[in-house]
């Protein structure tokens, strides 16, 4: 270990951009066992593992599995990594590590952080390839839990409950399981086979899966409450935000999630609505987060002629992962910073005109925050065939729940007890985006785990 003085940080290799654009496959080639060892050996094995304590919402045993894999002990690394995390190979791919573990890594100051994400993904990939299994005891208790939503929070909750031998039934309104992991994150970031592999595992462990079942339609929440010892609500935050400007209801203006879902369904073999076809079009995406990047890069793969991103602030202030921005640039996205759309209208040419104003950032205020202000008389027009709004998500209110006594805040986010994830209803637990608003997959996973642990304490005594 501590080889950081000799070995530099090396990220996993990516396919060439031109090649990447040919398909929706993952763009990274993860590490070989030699490479993963070399990279892991760089770890300092700190007395204060900032990566885990500060950097990781799941507080994964990062230094421990780094040490294990550096020590050529794949099985130990795999077990350590899967002890605390419900799907490390997924999080290793999609976590914004730069903001989390790798940002906290002590070597990030001047040496180059450990490539924690890539190593994490590699460990479980290699282990599964080598035929290693995760131990599940099989359902061995009478307690039964229903989980609503098969996204990260739900999977996590189910995973830990099943490890305790508690029976879990999961309800998902879509045709494929995985929620955001399946529909919200494009395949070039996360291969869908990886998600389905997890579900296969869980089903082998005893998970009962009901797809295409929307609670409130086929079956009601009160019904679930009656049928199960408790339920976990992990329905996410799926309501795309609009910009609140004139013209946003035009048919060529669409919400990011609608677009991404349609694309994924298309990849699953469904015929998509032609309005989501980007072939030869000029596509403008409004927003600077990871979802915006996903849309941009999906559109590029979809054959768009030109793809532009409009963002109110500058590059340094983008909320998403820098890694994803880089990937988007490499793949040919045009970035237009410091612009704020005011109106969208159809020009006589049939093209859309997005009227934008130039912005600038104010000086830092007392809290160190900079605000956006409009530069007067700077309006101009940006032409587009399609406009995709990637401005964030809100929670879709569920009246059935509120009627049962589950309280929400004014943004319709469910309120929960921070120690257990229990809502104000004694049988309803919740977590993930429906409680946090749009947030990270890893925080949703942590919420799911928290609720699962609380349920074990409660039902297994």
């Amino acid at each position: 270990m501590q080889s950081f003085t000799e070995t530099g940080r090396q990220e996993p290799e990516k396919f060439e951009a031109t090649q990447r654009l040919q398909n929706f496959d993952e763009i990274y080639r993860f590490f070989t066992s030699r490479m993963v060892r070399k990279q892991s050996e760089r770890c300092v094995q700190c007395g204060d593992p900032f990566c885990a304590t500060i950097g990781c919402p799941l507080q994964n045993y990062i230094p421990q599995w780094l040490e294990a894999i550096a020590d050529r002990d794949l099985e130990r690394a795999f077990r350590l990594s899967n002890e605390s995390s419900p799907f490390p190979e997924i999080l290793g791919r999609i976590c914004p590590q730069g903001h989390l573990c790798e940002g906290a890594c002590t070597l990030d100051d001047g040496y180059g952080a450990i490539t924690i994400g890539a190593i994490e993904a590699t460990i479980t990939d290699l282990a599964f390839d080598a035929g290693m299994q995760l131990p599940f005891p099989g359902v061995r208790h009478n307690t039964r839990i229903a989980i609503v939503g098969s996204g990260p929070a739900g999977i996590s909750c189910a995973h830990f409950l099943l490890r305790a031998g508690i029976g879990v039934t999961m309800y998902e309104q879509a045709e494929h399981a995985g929620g955001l992991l399946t529909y919200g994150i494009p395949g070039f970031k996360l291969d869908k086979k990886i998600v389905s592999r997890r579900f296969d595992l869980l089903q082998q462990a005893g998970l009962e899966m009901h797809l295409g079942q929307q609670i409130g339609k086929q079956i009601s929440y009160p019904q679930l409450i009656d049928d199960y010892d408790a339920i976990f609500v992990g329905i996410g935050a799926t309501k795309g935000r609009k910009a609140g400007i004139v013209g946003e209801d035009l048919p060529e203006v669409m919400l990011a999630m609608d677009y991404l879902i349609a694309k994924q369904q298309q990849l699953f073999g469904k015929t998509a609505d032609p309005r989501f076809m980007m072939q030869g079009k000029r596509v403008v995406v409004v927003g600077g987060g990871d979802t915006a990047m996903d849309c941009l890069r999906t559109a590029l793969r979809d054959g768009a002629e030109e793809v532009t991103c409009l963002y109110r602030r500058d590059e340094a202030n983008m909320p998403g992962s820098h890694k994803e921005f880089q990937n988007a640039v490499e793949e040919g996205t045009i970035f237009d910073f410091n612009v704020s759309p005011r109106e969208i209208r159809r020009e006589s040419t049939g093209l859309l005109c997005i009227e934008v104003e130039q912005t600038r950032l104010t000086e830092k205020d007392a809290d160190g925050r900079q605000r956006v202000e409009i530069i007067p008389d700077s309006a101009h027009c940006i032409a587009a065939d399609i406009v995709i709004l990637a401005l964030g998500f809100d929670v879709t209110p569920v009246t059935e729940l509120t009627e049962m006594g589950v309280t929400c805040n004014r943004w319709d986010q469910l309120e929960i007890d921070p120690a257990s994830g229990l809502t104000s209803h004694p049988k309803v637990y919740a977590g993930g985006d429906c409680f946090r608003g749009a947030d990270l997959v890893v925080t949703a996973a942590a919420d799911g785990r928290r609720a699962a642990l609380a349920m074990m304490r409660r039902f297994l005594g």
Partner: protein
Amino acid sequence: MNPAEKFRDNCGFGLLAQIDNQPNHQLLKDSIKALKRMMHRGAIAADGKTGDGSGLLCSMPVGFLNKVADEQEISLPEQFAVAVIFTSDPKKQLPAFEKLCSRNDLQILFTREVPVNTDALGEYALSRLPQIFQVFVVPAALIATRRLDALLYLTRKEVEKQFADDPNFYIPSFSRTLISYKGLVMPTYIETLFPDLMDPDFEITFALFHQRFSTNTLPQWKLAQPLRAIAHNGEINSIQGNRFKARYKFTNARSTVFTDDEIARIMPLLEEGVSDSASLDNMIEFKLANGVDFFKAIRGLVPPARHNVANMPAKLRAFYEYTSGAYEPWDGPAAISLTDGRYIGCVLDRNGLRPAKYIITTDNRLLISSEYGVIDTPAEMVRERGRLQSGQMIAADLNSGQIFYTRDIDRYLMESQPYNQWLTEHTYYLQEFIGRQFCEDKDYRYPDLETTQRYHNITSEVMDLIIRPMMADGKEPVGSMGDDTPLAAFSDQQRNFCDFFKQKFAQVTNPPIDPLREKAVMSTTIGFGGIGNPLIETKSRAMRLKSVSPFLSYEIYHSLLTFGDPQLPRFEACYKYRIFHTDFHSDLQTTLHQLAEQVLEAVNNDGVRIVILDDRVLNQKSKLIPMAMAIGYINRQLLKTNLRQHVSLVAVTGEVIDPHAAAVLIGYGAIAIYPWLLYASALALGEKRNQPPRELRKALQNVYQALNKGILKIMSKMGISTVSSYRNAALFDIIGLSHGIVDVCFKGSPLLLPGLGFQEIEERIDKVHRKIFVESYMMPVYPLEIGGYYRDNPGFEYHDFNSWHVTQLHRFAENRNREEYLKFRSMIDNRGIRYVRDALGFKSPHSPVPIEQVEPVAAITCRFDSAAMSLGALSPEAHEALAEAMNHLGGRSNCGEGGEDAARFNTNRNSRIKQIASGRFGVTPGYLRSAEEIQIKLAQGAKPGEGGQLPGEKVSPLIARLRFTIPGVTLISPPPHHDIYSIEDLAQLIFDLKQINPKAKISVKLVSTEGVGTIAAGVAKANADKIVISGHDGGTGAAPLSSLKYAGNPWEFGLSEAHISLKANNLRELVSLQTDGGMKIGRDVVKAAMLGAESYGFGTPLLVLLGCKLLRVCHLNRCTVGIATQDENLRSHYIGTVGKVVSYLENVAEDVREILAVLGFRSLEEVIGRCDLLEKLDTPLLNHFDFSEILHQVDGGNVRTRDNPPFDDNSFEKELLKEIYPVIKNPLTEMVAERDISNVNRSFGTLISGEIARFYGDTGLPKEALTIRLRGVAGQSLGAFLSEGMSIFLRGVGNDYVGKGMHGGRIIIIPEVYQAGASAVGNTCLYGATGGKLFVAGTAGERFGVRNSGALAVVEGTGDHACEYMTGGTVVVLGETGINFGAGMTGGAAFVYDRSKNFIDRLNQQLVVARRIDVDEDNEGRLYLKSILISYYNRTASPVAKAVLDDFREELAYFWMVTPKDMKAPLNPKEGD
């Protein structure tokens, strides 16, 4: 107990005997003179007159006593005895004495009150003065002399027992042959006190004399030495264990002298409430009284090292092996003179840690004393001059007028019985009955291993950080930085029961041992079997089963069982075993009691002799009694029921994962341990890693090795060399258990913070058991918990330097505003009760004052010091930043030991505190002179009782230059200061330092442990100006993890104890107190002040300000922030600034101001020592804990107000300094001075060297500037820290520490009358020398040239351990050396003239290699040696040198050249650069 009544003591001692048995008065006068001349080895109380005690044990002055009797008109018969009695109630006690005498056939002839002149006494001594009587006793009937002696002893013991409750009653002697005169008096006044001694008719043939240096100031009359048979200089480290064993050893003893009934009347043989020396005296006396041979009596208790010493005669080894079956060593530094009236002798401990020098004169006198020159024997009258070496003994038989040397005594001992044959027939090593160890692994396989591991807190962290390194390296793993976790008592996590125990360690009054380099004196051998009748040597006592280690492998364990199973052919009744399981379901205390009952029953009725406690019974229902508790409780119950002597206790336990847990079990009575779970864990780990069987076996072997090495290390911290002495010695402080538990299980160990009882411990066990068996709901993917005891892993043990705290401090360092600091402060404020101080809240009788009225920040920051961190541990950038920051704040930075660049002296980058530690690295006159404070580091919080090592790769050119060595040479610091083995030695070093730099304050750094108050009092009496009490949590660049965790206590305990003890001894005003350890915010500072500290040390937080992230990789040279490294690349990442440190400490001071304002005080000084301003917080968490001891109040001053100068003002050298001052003013002149010198003129040359260094630094004066010709016997530390330009020519002899720390100049010593092989200088000469030349035409004592890094020396012989830890310079020995030559030597060269061809056996070949130099290939060595010898001969005219030079070609063949295996330097340093 009044803290002033706790004490430790050391001293000056000796004996003088007229070998031809002709009584004379001169001998008495000379004995007293010798005592007076060792005044500096004793101490004087605050009243300036009360000594700590001195006295004489004389042969019976028959003539004088006849005269006394005549005056009473009584004539004394041939056969009479005299009892000397101290009493405060003669009316009652003397008749009682008479009554008991008459019951024992003794008749009182008359009683005489001994005249005393109280002018001799100090105020305190006078107030305690008893009445002293001499009672003349004769036999009431015709009885044999031997019977008379027996009756005297029996009677005395009975009388003592009768008045055991009266502390003032004491019988100093009651003998036919000996009489005692002693008291609380300085040697100067002993004749005044006892006018008897001035009577010319007081003629004696021998006297044992002794002067005591006690650490306390309330000494007692009866504690003065000599005792009844011995005078002891030293300390018995294993005393608790020895006392414990003495209580059962003789339970079934039969004596040739006494009847069983009489033995019962004598018992208990140990007096209560006496010193370690007195217990030893009791023991020796008991043996002598029971007819045990004089030599066997003492050698059985103080044997030489034998287990690891090559070439000891087999028969002699057999004697000691046989004796060890009944007697374990009374272990510790010791020089003991003793007598039974006929024989008189002196013996030295196995490691030679006290000085004992002898001369035999032409007029048939034998003088043994701590120093040479105490009675001014004219040189021509010295027939023989020598010294005792480690483990040696010298004695005289006054009946025959013969002197016995070690070899004579050895021969007598080994020939006296057929020990060898006895052993061959009856003693077996278990190892003989097995093939190889660790071949059989079926006993290391358990189906529910992982559950058991979880129960025993074997986490992934323990596997990775503890067990794996043990498997790989065969030793304990090393870590760095301090321990920042809570005490077990305050932890909310699963903790091991042994965490409540903190290892004891030696500081000041006794030295730790180096278990690596001085392993030769240590042993882990154990023996099973009863001890038989220890008073009579019989064949059956040889019936023992031995093992070379207290750790059992399955094979050894199994082999042991085969001897104890009646069904098997090897069975012997004395090894009959039974296994007892240590589980309980509920009610821990009752179950423990029942378990003990079963054991007692089995021992009593079924003859079970080997009691095996086995904890392999954990399951869903069964919880485990903590093994230490079971062992401790059963051990004590066996003692109570008089069964202990039959039984060996064996622990088969999963609790022993590291050496600490093993030490706890052994410390409370276990003889052997079978750590099955450790082996099982290692095996499982190895198999998971697919290690092949051979490697697996090796790995298990390594684990076993690591445990052995670990236990040696733990023992060595306390200066104990054998496991048999360590057993039962209870050398732990217990923190947070209740009196109830400690009294019945762990008696003998100090209890700090009384707290958790059986019920609370049971609740903790329940919680763990529940967690494992009930609450582990999920099937684990990774089978073990991660754990966070060593690293801060989320979800586990709390760490005070956790990532959040560190990150916040970094944020503060960036912005340096109060707001960010306050965020940090509130994190600390809100951490809950984690450390002792967190349990205490403020209260004040005053109302708040406006903050403006509180003293300014600068008045507070000047009380701040940075903790000692050496350049070497730190990068130059960080080291200098700390110095500059502390200077800016008016505080003091501590340079640590390792030198400092002279370019920094006199600038704002100079460290005001210069440290001097055991390695003496870079300690030069210039260095010492640049200090405002010189700190003697006796112990380090992170690893008290241990040395250290700076690996070669960290020794950069700068470090090498400052430490006077070559880049790349590994530098080893020994565990002890080799010039401080006792309190009087410390006084001597302080005296040395006050000479070299009279302006500097001398501080002494101690580590918190129970008893540190007693030590602190002693340190104050040794004239220190400041005492630092460090907490256990101090950081380090590298230390074994178990030392980081388990040695030393939180500072709160030590500080309050030191403060209270100093006050109780009226010493507080002479010294200031400082503390350090884990302090982070103002609240900590104010609490430390209230507990008695006047200044405050900060270590780790300052490093964090400089960028440290607590990575804990300092020992790997991988510090990513460029602080703890010398690597250029890493150092380029350093982001520290002076301002960050300054700003932080100013904020801390601002906190202090805020708190003071709220409490209504205007300055910090007002609250120092005001522990009444603290109170235990009112929270249920603290309900069980008792803080009264910490908050105990004593009247008296709370701060230092007076100077603490040594009583010796060194006017001898001051006057000379005046005379030679012109040379210092004008270095171009030269001057010669002449003086007569005696042993009371200590540290000669040091004062002048200091004055030279003051102006010229280490450069000194031109070579020939000052020549001083001396004649006589020089006192200790001749030429210590000698500067260049000084030449000292001594015609005579020197004492200990000649040339210690010398940097330049020359010391040449030629005895007035040359005798080949005679001793000419004492122990530990040239220790830490950095240059200069020492030529001695005679032999040197033990540890010659230890840590020499530059001096050239020639001597004609040395004692043991010569050239130990040497890193440079050249030593030529023209004669025999002792054992262990060149241990830990990593640099320099030595030439040894091995005429008798036995050197190679005495060489420690671990790091060095010896080569012949009579071949052409080694021309360089040959020429270098010759040039040295020529120079030596020119200076000394030594006949040995002449003989060698005259026939150099021939004699060259007898020389060995010893150099480190990886020699990096040129042989002749002058040929370097």
